[in-house]
C-alpha cells in the first residue's frame, strides 16, 4: 500500500475528495485517509443539499460565488455522475416583521458583496412557489442559488479522484501529525505512518484533535443536526428553501422526495451512542415547522431521518488555508453545517494553493489564526 505522496489529505469527506480530485488533475500524487469505513460519512452525506450564496457570511461569499459561477454548472459532466444540480433560486422565508428585519439585513450585506439578492413580499413568494402558506409574508430571493445531491456529488468526486490515481484508505483514523525538521511530514494512524510534503486536515470536527498534535487549535464545538426525507411525490417546485427562524430548510429532489432539515433548539446538548443518532424530539419538531409553511405536505410520509455532527466554530465561518507557521500544513474545517455548496470551490482553490501557493479567491478572511477574544 502506498504510504508516501506529495499531499496527504486527512478526511475523506467532500472537501478532502474534491481537493484530491483537483490536485490529481494538476498532476499531484495524493493519499486520502478516512477515519470511518465510508467515504463522505460525515456532514458530506448528512446535509440538506443547499448550493447557496444567500444567507452566508460575507467572508465566505466570494468563494461560494466563485464556485457557483465556475464549477457547479459543469460538475455532473466532469464527475460523470448526476449531481442533480438545480439553479432555481433560494427563498429564505419570513413570517413576522422581526423575520423581515433579519432577512433584509442579510440581503443588504450580501448585495454589498455583489450578490443579486432582494427582498420580496408574500404574494411574490407565492408566485414563485404557490405551495407556501399565507403565513409567509416575505422572503429574500436569490435567483442564482440552488441545490444538488450531496451523496452523488461527494462520491462523484471520490470516484473521479480515484480514477485519477488518488489513493484512498478508509478505516484509517489519524492519531497525530508530526513535524520533521521544521516542516509537516508524517501522518500517524493506528496502523501505519504516512508521509507527505504537504498535509491537508479536512476532518470536520475531528480536525481539532488531530491538529492539537502539532499545537494548532481551531475553536470548534459540536452540534447535532437532523434531516428527514419523504417518499417521492409528484414534482412541485425546484427552489431551495430556508427560513429566517431556521426552523426548517430543504428542497424537492429530482427523485421526487423532499429532503428537509431543521432544528429543535436542543442540538448543542444532544447526546450520542457512538454514532450520530437522531433524538426523539427533533423530527416531530421539524415536521411541525414544515407543515406551517407547506400545509399540502401534511400527509406526505417520512421514510427516513438521520443525524450528523456539525463542526461549529465561534464565528460561524470556516478555517481555511495554509498554516504558515508549519510549512506544508493546510486546514479546511469548521464549515458550520454549510460546507457542501462551497466544497467544489474549496477543493479547487486549495489544490491551487498547495501546488502553486496562489488562489483566485482571497482566503485571508478565513485564516485559521483569526480567532480573538471579545475585548
Amino acid at each position, binding site marked *: 500500500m*502506498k504510504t508516501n505522496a506529495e499531499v496527504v489529505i486527512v478526511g475523506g469527506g467532500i472537501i478532502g475528495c474534491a481537493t484530491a480530485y483537483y490536485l490529481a488533475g494538476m498532476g499531484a500524487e495524493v493519499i486520502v485517509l478516512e477515519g470511518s469505513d465510508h467515504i463522505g460519512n460525515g456532514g458530506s452525506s448528512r446535509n440538506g443539499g443547499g448550493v447557496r450564496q444567500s444567507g452566508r457570511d460575507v467572508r465566505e461569499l466570494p468563494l461560494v460565488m466563485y464556485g457557483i459561477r465556475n464549477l457547479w454548472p459543469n460538475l455532473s459532466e466532469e464527475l460523470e455522475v448526476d449531481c442533480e444540480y438545480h439553479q432555481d433560486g433560494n427563498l429564505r422565508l419570513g413570517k413576522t416583521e422581526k423575520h423581515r428585519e433579519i432577512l433584509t439585513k442579510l440581503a443588504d450585506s450580501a448585495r454589498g458583496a455583489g450578490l443579486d439578492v432582494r427582498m420580496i413580499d408574500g404574494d411574490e413568494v407565492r408566485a414563485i412557489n404557490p405551495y407556501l402558506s399565507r403565513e409567509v409574508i416575505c422572503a429574500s430571493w436569490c435567483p442564482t442559488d440552488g441545490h444538488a445531491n450531496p451523496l452523488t456529488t*461527494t462520491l462523484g468526486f471520490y470516484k473521479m479522484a*480515484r480514477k485519477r490515481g488518488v*489513493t*484512498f484508505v478508509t478505516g484509517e483514523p489519524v492519531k497525530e501529525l508530526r513535524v520533521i525538521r521544521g516542516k509537516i511530514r508524517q501522518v500517524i494512524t493506528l496502523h501505519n505512518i504516512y508521509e507527505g510534503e504537504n498535509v491537508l486536515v479536512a476532518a470536520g470536527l475531528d480536525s481539532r484533535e488531530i491538529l492539537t498534535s502539532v499545537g494548532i487549535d481551531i475553536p470548534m464545538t459540536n452540534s447535532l443536526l437532523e434531516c428527514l426525507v419523504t417518499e417521492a411525490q409528484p414534482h412541485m417546485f425546484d427552489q431551495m428553501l430556508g427560513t429566517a427562524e431556521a426552523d426548517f430548510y430543504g428542497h424537492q429532489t429530482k427523485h421526487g422526495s423532499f429532503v428537509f432539515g431543521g432544528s429543535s433548539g436542543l442540538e448543542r446538548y444532544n447526546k450520542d451512542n457512538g454514532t450520530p443518532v437522531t433524538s426523539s424530539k427533533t423530527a416531530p419538531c421539524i415536521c411541525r415547522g414544515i407543515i406551517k409553511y407547506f400545509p399540502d405536505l*401534511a400527509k406526505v410520509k417520512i421514510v427516513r431521518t438521520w443525524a450528523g455532527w456539525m463542526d461549529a466554530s465561534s464565528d460561524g465561518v470556516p478555517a481555511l488555508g495554509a498554516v504558515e507557521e508549519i510549512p506544508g500544513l493546510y486546514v479546511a474545517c469548521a464549515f458550520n453545517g454549510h460546507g457542501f455548496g462551497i466544497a467544489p470551490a474549496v477543493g479547487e482553490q486549495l489544490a491551487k494553493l498547495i501546488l502553486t501557493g496562489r488562489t483566485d479567491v482571497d482566503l485571508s478572511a478565513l485564516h485559521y489564526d483569526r480567532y480573538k477574544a471579545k475585548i
Partner: protein
Amino acid sequence: MNSVNDRSRDIGPFVPGPDDDMIICRCEEITKGEIRQAVHDGMWTLTEIRRYLRTGMGLCQGQTCGRLVKGIVARELGISPAELEPAASRVPMRPIEMEIFANEAPEEKEVGYYED
C-alpha cells in the same frame, strides 16, 4: 468496527454479466449491473452503494433488497457478505405521515407504574 481498506486494491475489471439488467432494488429500480459497476467505481461499502445508487432508499427502505445487494457487492469484492457492514437502520421503521409524526401525544400526568 474499523478495518483498514485500501481502495486502490485491485478487484479486477468489470465483466458484464448476462443478468446485469435484473432489478434488485424493487422500489428504486436499481439493477444488478448498476450495483456491480458501482463497486468498480469504488463504492465498496453498502453505505456508499446506497448513497451512490439509492438502493434501499425507496419507500421500503431496503427491507427487501438489503440482503440481495449485500450478496452482489460481496461477490464483486471477493469477500464474504458477513464482512460487509450491516445496513444502517433509521427512524421511522415504517413510512409515517408528517402530520402524524408532528402530532406528539400530550404528556400524561401519571407517571406509569410509580403511581400505582
